[in-house]
């Protein structure tokens, strides 16, 4: 039981919010629980949900990599709700649970086959909330060898936004959805 009760689906009348909820359900992230909670702040629910979906499913960084990063962050945040959800788009692109676990726990292992660009993106997410002091000029200079500045901003904003929402959802005690993967919290 979440600490703040979600609104019933039928209580959400805003067609824009309804459309975004349907978009999230089609993607698989988020299901309708998160939107029904933030719908309690209706003026903010639409831009928040739009930003969440846009930062995850659009842009110029590989969606499969973003999906691994999103799950890595949710595990780090100890957020069972978002950690258990999976992007159908990423799955359809070939992302497997095995690859997700490798990306979360073993991306530095050269035998796992992550490119240097992917490794730097995963380090970026790892360090942002583990030890942000390491994200210094030297780190960004190295990032720029693999990613454009636009892509770095896309990654940074994605990491910041999703981690923030994961910490919020964690605070609400939202459990994993009924249909969940065999989720392991880092």
């Amino acid at each position: 039981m979440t600490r703040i009760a979600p609104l019933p689906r039928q209580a959400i009348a805003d067609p824009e919010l309804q459309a975004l909820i349907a978009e999230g359900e089609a993607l698989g992230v988020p299901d309708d629980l998160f939107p029904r909670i933030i719908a309690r702040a209706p003026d903010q629910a639409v831009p928040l949900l739009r930003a969440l979906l846009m930062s995850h499913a659009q842009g110029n960084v590989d969606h499969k990599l973003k999906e691994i990063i999103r799950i890595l962050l949710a595990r780090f945040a100890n957020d069972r709700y978002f950690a258990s959800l999976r992007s159908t788009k990423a799955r359809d692109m070939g992302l497997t649970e095995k690859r997700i676990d490798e990306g979360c726990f073993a991306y530095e292992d050269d035998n796992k086959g992550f490119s240097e660009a992917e490794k730097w993106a995963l380090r970026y997410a790892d360090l942002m909330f583990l030890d942000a002091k390491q994200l210094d000029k030297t780190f960004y200079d190295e990032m720029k060898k693999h990613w454009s500045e636009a892509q770095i901003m896309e990654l940074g904003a994605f990491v910041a936004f999703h981690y923030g929402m994961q910490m919020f959802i964690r605070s609400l005690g939202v459990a994993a959805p009924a249909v969940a993967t065999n989720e392991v919290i880092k």
Partner: protein
Amino acid sequence: MSINPDAVDAAFFDELRKHYSEDEIVELGVFIGFNLGYHTFFGSLNFYPMFSPDGRLVRQSESEKLYGPTPTSLKPEAAV
């Protein structure tokens, strides 16, 4: 939420409800979550306010000198 998220438990929410509606708690929570994420990201980018405290448009190098490398609220002397 940031420093000790385990402390934001059911008892904490019960106390919050004495002062805020559930809708207000959601508004506060998403605001804090958003800022928690973005301030860490922005902090890593090493940028400073565009304007001095008296309203002048200043270069980043001057702004860094004006505002210093540490957020004001984190300076020990700022603690009351």
